[in-house]
């Protein structure tokens, strides 16, 4: 059985989407967190055995524990290959797939966060520059035909579409047609719609 530790309208919402794409039975354990705007409540200390920093998402699959969005997405996509959410090991697109998952978890999360907090205003952060990250993202999304790795929709699309939705909502990224077109295409998938309904409660 798959259990997702989830807080509505948070980073874990994209894993609800991932699980809907996977079409495997799962259950959701609603978990309190402190949201970006400061609202919410802390999870009990006992939750630290599930997630070391009491954040979401975290996943338990028959006792196998995974956390970090990209870690969970990579785990699920490989573990349930019938859903074809990852190029298999040995496929010539596997390298790009792995690179983009890690890029998403690293620079694509750290650079916008630093940018939002004003950290990169007068000194380099060490993560890389916002304009360079955005140029790379734009090139990657512009090449999506219709999905980032080609015909096959993968876990990378779930993560990137979720990030675009979030960054455009908070004006961290401009609403360029290349982003909105791709995000609408992804958000229009039946699994994405089911995930939004579940997330709304």
């Amino acid at each position, binding site marked *: 059985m798959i259990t997702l530790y989830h807080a509505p309208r948070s*980073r874990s919402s994209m894993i609800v989407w991932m699980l809907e794409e996977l079409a495997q039975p799962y259950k959701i354990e609603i978990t309190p*967190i*402190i*949201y*970006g705007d*400061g609202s919410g409540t802390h999870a009990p200390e006992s939750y630290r055995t599930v997630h*070391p*920093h009491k954040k979401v998402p975290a*996943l338990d*699959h028959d006792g*196998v*524990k*995974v*956390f*970090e*969005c*990209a*870690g*969970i997405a*990579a*785990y699920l996509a*490989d*573990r349930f290959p019938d859903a074809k959410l990852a190029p298999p*090991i*040995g496929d*010539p*697109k*596997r*390298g*790009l797939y*792995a*690179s983009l*998952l*890690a*890029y998403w*978890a*690293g*620079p694509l*999360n*750290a650079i916008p*966060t*630093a940018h*939002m*907090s004003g*950290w990169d205003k007068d*000194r380099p*952060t*060490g*993560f*890389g520059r916002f304009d*360079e990250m955005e140029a*790379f993202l734009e090139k990657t999304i512009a090449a999506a035909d219709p999905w980032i790795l080609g015909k096959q929709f993968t876990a990378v699309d779930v993560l990137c579409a979720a990030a675009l939705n979030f960054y455009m909502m908070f004006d961290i990224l401009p609403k360029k047609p290349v982003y909105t077109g791709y995000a609408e295409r992804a958000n229009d998938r039946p699994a994405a719609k089911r995930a939004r309904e579940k997330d709304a409660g």
Partner: protein
Amino acid sequence: MITLFHYPQTRSSRFIFLLEELGAPYQIHQITKLVETRDPSNPQPHGKVPAIRDEETGDVVYESPAIALYLTDKFPKAGLGPTVGQQGRGAYLSWLVYYGSVMEPAFMSKFSNTPVPRPQAGWVEMEEAMAHVIGQLSKTPYLLGEAFSAADVLYGTTFAMFGKSPMMPKSEVIDLYVKHVTERPALARAQAKEGTR
């Protein structure tokens, strides 16, 4: 054949270590310069290192956690990362991703004396991240348990580099871990191939 795009004394150095551990066929392509004037032969999107190219498929891989995962999946016989379905795969993926999404930003925040923008940030203060690492290493010699893995290549070399910094929390557990990682023969072989700037 794996080509490693490398620049001496950078984040690419530890991938010579990993490739030596794997016993994988590889060659080192030392790039001429880092980002300032990027070397056109470097396929990394921002002109950084590390990156690898799998000469069998032409596939390019970048970002340290992705390179580690790609290589251990491609060379599973070395036993340096649990394969899909194997016990420990979940922990392995969690540690690899955590390295890029939490550990590195936590170090950057600490060393640049910038508060972690919480609760928005996906990472935490270095002390809290180190507590998680120390918690695991107090129970087992390596991050995944009794056996050394590619995750230890990432964390062990990082702690070896920052271990002397007064900003790093003093920990006997970390000191012992660094000792175990840095005593490995593959690291000595890797250092002999490091090259000069």
